């Protein structure tokens, strides 16, 4: 298994306690409970484990919500549900690291445009999870496409847009009942055109890329000072505890915006940066070095192929589209082989992301397009390698690889059974399991969720 370098590195960078941040992290705790499931064995499948390996004619046993075993002719507990998966392909549940489901829900009405707090360039205090509408019909469509987990992020209007949340893609009435327990928060940052356009047109800073960088630096300088105040407070409190005569220290004033950024400096939050151009990504790496935080992934990274070696060396993932380009200037240099080239170096971490309610439904097709375009330049990419872009690498960027993202024993039984090779326009998810429970079955309407919003609509499809 790939070492979880992100966590290992970030914890050594700054040894500042973040008392306030830790307290904030426990708020809005997950209430997610896996649905009841019986032991299930998938027999005779082509299995893409998610870690680069493939098993042919293999069995996968799901038990107590976990992957219990992989192999051939597995002995299974009495009463296990047997599924004949001959001619089918089995993969880990797909993970989208960049979704706005719930915060930019369907239908796209003004009342539920809750993804961009465009009131200041740094809004680290806002959390995407507070804008998530669990009845977004897009969740169910994504489930039918094999998505079992996703990170819902704030939009990119701001330099620092707020916290992202990782959800399990289960139908629920509350966000908390979808929240992935134990997943770290993400921080959404944005480079380039969007923040400078949003604020520049208001004659405010940032108006230029210079202003963008000044904005990040000011925010993290403030956060460093804030974290130090809390560290001093922690030291003083400890001292007061030992020495009864000392006056109890006064706690610094709690600041929700700086809580988030202090937690970033402490390595408790995964940093996700919307950044298109190669030169800007290099500047963001320098920013991270200056303040001692770690970047989990550059998102969109249309020019990531220009610095694929740097990204691999820095252990930064590229969360990318298969083929989007040209809709703005910083997307002008897009190429169809971007993902393949980011995947290519030793240690490269390529991720197929969607940023789209349409794209999230067919990440497998996005990856298939990349396989096809790589083929044109003589780069052969096997399915067992490509699946990592949608599973293992995505889980790594979200900091949940120890829980999900591959079909290794002991991990969550987040599993998709495909009607064939998933890297095809004709592929369909037949069944989707989340924590061992059957959440979707293409051939059984009783296992196809419908959101409250779609219920009873006269024009329902």
């Amino acid at each position, binding site marked *: 298994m790939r070492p979880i370098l992100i966590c290992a590195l970030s914890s050594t960078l700054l040894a500042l306690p973040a008392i306030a941040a830790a307290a904030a992290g426990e708020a809005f705790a997950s209430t997610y409970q896996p649905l009841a499931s019986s032991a299930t064995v998938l027999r005779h499948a082509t299995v893409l484990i998610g870690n680069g390996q493939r098993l042919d004619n293999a069995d996968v046993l799901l038990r107590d919500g976990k992957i219990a075993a992989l192999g051939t002719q597995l002995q299974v507990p009495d009463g296990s549900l047997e599924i004949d998966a001959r001619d089918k392909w089995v993969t880990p549940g797909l993970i989208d690291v960049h979704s706005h489901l719930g915060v930019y829900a369907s239908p796209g009405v003004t009342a539920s445009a809750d993804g961009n707090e465009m009131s200041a360039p740094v809004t680290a205090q806002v959390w995407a999870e507070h804008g998530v509408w669990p009845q977004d019909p897009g969740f169910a469509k994504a489930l039918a496409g094999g998505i079992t987990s996703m990170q819902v992020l704030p939009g990119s209007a701001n330099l620092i847009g707020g916290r992202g949340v990782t959800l399990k893609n289960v139908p629920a009435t509350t966000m908390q009942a979808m929240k992935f327990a134990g997943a770290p928060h993400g921080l959404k940052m944005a480079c380039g055109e969007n923040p400078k356009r949003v604020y520049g047109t208001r004659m405010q800073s940032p108006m230029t890329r210079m202003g963008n960088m000044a904005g990040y630096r000011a925010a993290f300088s403030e956060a460093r000072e804030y974290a130090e105040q809390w560290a001093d407070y922690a030291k003083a409190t400890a001292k007061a505890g030992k020495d009864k005569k000392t006056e109890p220290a006064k706690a610094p004033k709690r600041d929700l915006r700086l809580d988030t950024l202090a937690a970033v400096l402490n390595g408790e939050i995964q940093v996700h940066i919307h950044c298109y151009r190669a030169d800007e990504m290099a500047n963001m790496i320098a920013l991270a070095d200056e303040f001692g935080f770690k970047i989990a992934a550059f998102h969109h990274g249309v020019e990531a192929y220009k610095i694929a070696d740097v990204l691999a060396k820095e252990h930064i993932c590229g969360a990318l589209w298969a083929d*989007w380009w040209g*809709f703005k200037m910083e997307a*002008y240099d897009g190429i169809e*082989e971007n993902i393949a080239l980011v995947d290519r170096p030793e240690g490269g971490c390529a991720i197929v992301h969607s940023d789209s309610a349409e794209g999230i439904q067919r990440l497998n097709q996005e990856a*298939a397009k990349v396989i*096809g375009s790589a083929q*044109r330049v003589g780069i052969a990419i096997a399915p067992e390698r490509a699946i990592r872009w949608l599973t293992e690498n995505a889980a790594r960027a979200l900091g949940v690889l120890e829980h999900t993202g591959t079909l290794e024993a002991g991990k969550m039984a987040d599993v998709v059974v495909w009607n064939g090779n998933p890297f095809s*326009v004709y592929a369909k998810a037949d069944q989707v399991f989340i924590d061992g429970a059957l959440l979707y079955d293409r051939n059984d309407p009783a296992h196809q969720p419908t959101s409250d919003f779609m219920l009873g609509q006269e024009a*329902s499809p």
Partner: protein
Amino acid sequence: MNRIMRRVIAFVLLATSSVASAQDVLIRNATVHTASTAGTLRGSDVLVQGGLISAIGNALAAPAGIAIVDANGAPLTPGLFAGVSGIGVEEVSAEPSANDGALVFGATVPQAAQMRPEFDVTLAYNPRSSLLPVARMGGLSFTQLAAGSALGGSIIAGQGAVVRLDGRFDGIPFAEQRALFINLGGNLAPLSGNSRAGAYMLLAQAIAEARSAAPAGSVNTLLTPAGRSALAGYFARGRVLVGVDRAADILRVIAIAQREKLNIVLVGAAEGWLVAAQLAAAKVPVLIDGLENLPGSFDSLGATLENAARLHAAGVAVGFSQRGDASHNARKMRQLAGNAVANGLPWEAGLAGLTAMPAKALGVSHRIGSIEVGKLADLVLWSGDPLEVTNSARQIWLAGKAMPMQSRQTQLRDRYLRAAGPLPRAYP
């Protein structure tokens, strides 16, 4: 490996350019998807002379000196439709200086003068746009240039035309096949007094003015004299492409078209399947987005991946066009058709939706859209099933000319694919 491949490609290009006419070629042993009543011909040859398809059959005699391409059984299709787009009109979507697709006067002129059917987007067409080679790499050979409706503009967006993506300055071959664009729906309500009923009111007024029901120069007229004349032209000939999704609106549009004798094609039609019988009876073709299955607005609550299959089964002519960034992402058109096929549309209808159907609906089927003798030789040789996203175009011919399989994107790719050398990559 890559260097070798590049040499092979260079050799092929050299070979094709050394023959007497660059518009003659004999393609041997292809699986020819004709997109015509002839269906699919296996192991067939296609002979191209003077830019036209001159013969189709087995073991055709090779004229002296002609370039021969052995397809080795690979699929050969007509050049594909790139959808209703702004290819050549929209270089960078977000840059006003590089996007000419919609007329937006905004507050600078009174609302009454914002409806300009005389707006002709083809005058902004740049055949040397970087989007053309990118589209050709995806096997796309023609598009319907669209005039768009944007806030500050009008529901009658203006005119466009079909253009072949050959990059030539000397024209838009199908300039005579003009189309007027009208866009309806809740998202455009601000253009009609914040009500879709207002859109029908304004349309009725504009039509009445064009039919000279109001004396020119009356107060509160919507159209300029040029606009009246442009709109009136569509009563007799040409096509009206109507962007519309909600089933109830589709029925209203059909009624207006029948009353005013307009030749309409629907674009979008997310809820088309709900009124499939009426569309079939009125013989109205539709261009739909085969990936659309979300209720993106209250106009498309009925969106489903089975829209194409259901419409086709009801006898409606179904083709494809993309919502979203239709210009840059035009190469996604094959994926739209592929998904429609994965959701019940017969494969042949999927391919027809990218070829013969749009050519017919847009009035250019006498020249393009199928592989038939006498048609322009706009052809694509594929690595496999053209609707399968892992496959790619190996070669595209436009009027028999083998177009270079290169774009700005492949050059960027090749620049960064090679190992770093002593000089920066900016050097060749």
